[in-house]
């Protein structure tokens, strides 16, 4: 499939990057910020509409990579510029293109300095993130993987809060340290797998157990930091608190998913033996993350930190689902990735809305928004209910599938993880009572309700939260075949389990 006679995946990667060049002439022109915002919004919207054609063109009955492109890039090392997507990447690409217009909208009044440069960063970041989900060559993947870090680093470091330098450097170094071990694994795989970087050919080979274990651990370092898994999560609250709203949304909704994507795309199919070997360890870390993140969220006064820790908890559900190696677990994990992207992204957008008005994120300075901002409050309540996995909202589908899938193989682990439903109700309802219910405070008195661009950012997400919750089957059918193929690669039965 092509678009404007450019292969569609290449178009999706480079359209935002190239378009961002259009914005560079406006650098230092403060009178034209309006145009810049509209151009950025237009680009991200076009990108989203074009990406929808993937959904139309995808054949859900195939597990193989589709929309494939392949060109030799660096001949001496057999490195290719090769792209392709399956059901798993498709969902994450759509999540990315869906959320980028929202991040432009939330920056409408949230960003006041150097607007053109900010939008350039957003657009470059979008291209790199889509590249990560499309790349089928390991070196190309690594290039996009690292390329994402730079715009994100700048977004936190330039447009962030008071402690932004510390947070930006911590984010950058922490993820980079993990990524370097990934690079080592990629090179090792090149030699072990027959002098190729083709991801398809590197999977399904039978590597020796020692190699598998070392490779799994090295990749674990990269992906566990990204997700982030306990105990590698402490960069997340810092990065979220300092990042501007758009940065938080991208970080929480899309970048955290890349760690889980890495496990699904590389660790599991390339190192199935090691994956089974490390299952008890991974399950234990997942459960700790679920409970730990929830208790940390209970203690927070800063709304962004509260949601950041809740992300640790919810991503624990994702890793739990991945490492039970059955259809419900992995499909649930993918649903949870998508839903966490929608819901947590929406929650960060919501925090951004009130932060723009009051410049505070402390729960103690809020109250009574139900009266001051009824529409906003309704939406916040819906997103919070989604986050606590109320049936009928999107998140319930993912959590339910993960838990029912994990219960089959690991009943005790699943039971402990299920206590998360109680804890998540505690911290989210606690947040709602402090923000939405009660009486107004000096900060919330006379706060205006949603503006047009905020409606635009939030309403589509409300619709998605409810639609996916009520009719999840169309989403699941996008990746049924890909997951079935992956599960097939993961047999035989686990060597060790929590039983």
């Amino acid at each position, binding site marked *: 499939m092509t678009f404007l006679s450019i292969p569609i995946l290449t178009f999706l990667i480079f359209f935002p990057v190239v378009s961002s060049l259009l914005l560079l002439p406006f650098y230092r022109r403060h009178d034209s910020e309006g145009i810049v915002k509209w151009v950025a919004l237009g680009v991200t919207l076009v990108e989203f509409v074009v990406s929808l054609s993937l959904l139309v063109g995808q054949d859900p009955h195939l597990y193989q990579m589709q929309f494939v492109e392949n060109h030799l890039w660096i001949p001496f090392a057999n490195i290719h510029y090769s792209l392709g997507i399956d059901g798993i990447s498709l969902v994450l690409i759509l999540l990315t293109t869906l959320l980028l217009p929202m991040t432009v909208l939330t920056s409408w009044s949230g960003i006041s300095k150097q607007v053109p440069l900010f939008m350039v960063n957003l657009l470059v970041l979008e291209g790199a993130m889509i590249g990560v989900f499309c790349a089928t060559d390991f070196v190309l993947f690594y290039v996009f993987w690292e390329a994402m870090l730079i715009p994100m680093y700048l977004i936190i470091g330039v447009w962030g809060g008071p402690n932004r330098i510390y947070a930006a450097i911590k984010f950058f170094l922490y993820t980079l340290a993990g990524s370097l071990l990934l690079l080592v694994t990629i090179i090792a795989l090149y030699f072990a797998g027959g002098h190729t970087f083709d991801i398809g050919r590197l999977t399904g080979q039978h590597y020796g157990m020692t190699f598998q274990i070392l490779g799994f651990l090295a990749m674990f370092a990269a992906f566990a930091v990204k997700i982030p898994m306990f105990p590698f999560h402490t960069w997340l609250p810092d990065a979220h608190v300092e990042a501007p709203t758009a940065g938080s949304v991208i970080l929480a909704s899309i970048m955290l998913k890349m760690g889980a994507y890495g496990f699904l795309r590389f660790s599991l199919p390339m190192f199935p033996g090691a994956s089974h070997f490390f299952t008890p360890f991974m399950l234990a870390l997942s459960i700790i993350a679920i409970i730990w993140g929830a208790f940390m969220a209970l*203690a927070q006064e800063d709304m962004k930190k509260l949601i950041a820790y809740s992300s640790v908890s919810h991503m624990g559900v994702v890793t739990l689902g991945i490492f039970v190696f059955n259809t419900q677990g992995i499909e649930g994990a993918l649903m949870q990735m998508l839903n966490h992207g929608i819901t947590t992204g929406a929650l960060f957008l919501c925090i951004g809305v009130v932060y723009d008005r009051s410049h505070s994120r402390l729960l103690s300075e809020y109250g009574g928004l139900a009266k001051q901002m009824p529409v906003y409050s309704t939406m916040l309540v819906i997103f919070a209910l989604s986050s606590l996995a109320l049936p009928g909202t999107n998140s319930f589908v993912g959590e339910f599938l993960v838990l029912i899938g994990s219960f089959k193989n690991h009943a005790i682990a699943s039971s402990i993880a299920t206590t998360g439903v109680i804890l998540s109700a505690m911290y989210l309802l606690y947040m709602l009572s402090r923000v939405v219910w009660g009486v107004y405070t000096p900060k919330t008195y006379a706060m205006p309700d949603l503006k047009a661009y905020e409606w635009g950012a939030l309403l589509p997400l409300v619709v998605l939260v409810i639609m996916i919750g009520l009719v999840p089957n169309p989403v699941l059918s996008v990746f049924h075949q890909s997951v079935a193929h992956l599960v097939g690669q993961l047999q035989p039965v686990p060597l060790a389990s929590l039983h």
Partner: protein
Amino acid sequence: MTPIIFIPLLPLIGFLVVGIFWPFFKGKGHFIAVPLMIGSWVIATSEFFKSFTNPPNVTFVYDWIRSGHLDIGISLQYDHLAAIMLFMVTTVAMLVHLYTIGYMHGDSGYDRFFSYISLFSFSMIMLVLSNNLVEMFIFWEAVGLCSYLLIVHWYERRPSWLAANKAFIMNRVGDFGFLLGIFLTYSTFGSVSFAEIFPAISSHLHQTVNIASAFHGSMNIPVLDLIALLLFLGAVGKSAQIPLHPWLPDAMEGPTPISALIHAATMVTAGIFMIARMNPLYNAAPFAAHVVAWTGGITAIVAATIALTQPDIKKIIAYSTMSQLGYMVMVCGLGGYGAGIFHLLTHGAFKALLFLGAGSVIHSLSGEQDVFRMGGLRKYIGLTFVTMLIGSLALSGIPPFAGYYSKDLILVTAYQQGPLGQILWMIGVLTAVLTAFYSFRLMFLVFGGKERFHSDQAGHGGHGIHPHESPWTMTVPLVLLSIAAVVAGWAGEHYGVLEYLAQELPIPHQDPVAGGMSDSALKGLSVGVGVLGIFVAWAFYGRESSIPGSLAKGLSFFYKLSLYKWYFDELYDLVFVRSSFLIGRLFWQELDKGVIDETVNGVAAFFRNSGLGLRRYQTGQLQNYAMVMAIGVFGLVAFYLVFNRM
């Protein structure tokens, strides 16, 4: 298309229209919500009468989740149990919709309120019509959500949102059990639908699970018992059984129509409905059934003892609800599912009546809820008085009112279920005395004696209060419900509710106790204890008496235990709420920030400090470099010479 689908659909439309377009209604939301609810009631009623002849049927709506071998659909299962439940649910919902027009008149959240009670009615109807456990769970949580949103209706008041949070979180504890029950059902039976589980139960009778395997212990319990207990945990939360009950009395912070609809007649009975629906499971799980029976019995009596001393009119009725729910749970645990459902239905009528009556009293006194600040209201609000009297007589089990038939059936069923049944029967009889007592304590304090509301109404500018009867939208539901509270019991017995329900709920074998009391003696006894309770209430509160005061002094330990609700709230607040937040804060400060993050920063600092330290050796002076080089060369040569010799 079957008309059954319109029973839930109409209130759903009401919710969507009023909920989405609420800014345009400006206090006229009832023009949409009420007619739609009446339509739903009409269909439910006509289908109920048709159900005597029509066979049960299942309507498939749509496929919800399909993943691997898991396939969960949304379907409407319409059988006798569902039909009679829907008849009660839609009747009460329709009357409460009507009542709300008058009660909530002028409230700033009037239209929002209507959209939520329509959503609730939809969810409750769907819960009753569920044909699998997951579908039931979805609507189980949906009714919980409506309960939350309606308790927090007056959201500016701190007690409202505290109560709403408590209700939601305590129910989540129960739902945690319900979810695990679903998981275990699925991994045992490979399905969650009733039609596939029930026939397979007999083949899992001897299967056990080792729940201590994680600790390398061995503690085998039958899998059916475990499923039944886990699901029951959900019922304990939803139906406010001990120990997950404290949310129900607090939920009275919500507007009174909600207390009548959600927290008396329908939602809180969902737990009993679930147990009845799952009766093949509970019949095959004797241990779990014992736990159910005891939980119900203990809840019945403990709640009744608390209701004795409460000063708040709504809380008295709330504890009475909890106690009556205990009766229903108890008899279900003894195998008398039909009796439990029968009491559920009559209770739905007379308890909704009592709540709506209490609402009318509160309305007439402009928001007063303390029974010690009422009194003598009989001559001001006569209609409310008569209807509440009917409700109280029904609750006390005085013939020919509805509660007599169903409560008596519960006690007789219990009595005939062997020694365990007889112990629980005794608890039930004792509870019946207390029930009659607190019901009439309320009646005497509110409607009899002196007027106590003029003297201390400083808050109203010294004008005092002029009690007034409520508008017709409020009194018509009262009258209709009181008719139901009179005839429902008789009709149930006359037309054979147990035989009607026998399609789904088997009637337990009647086992007349040798040398025990006959049926008529049991009936006489249960009427007798009701009359006794009313007489004592009159002796204490129907006349000038110093007995209550001296009893409170003389038995101050028991008085305080009752007044402070057995200190459940204080205990839970300390053990669960405060400790959770404390653990959160402590672990965050000491471990998350203190240990984990410090380690991360420590690694970074190590490299930074190493760099800073090494930097001092880069002095830029050639002599230093030359000297280091010379030492290095010398060292290497020495090393080579020494080790090469060896």
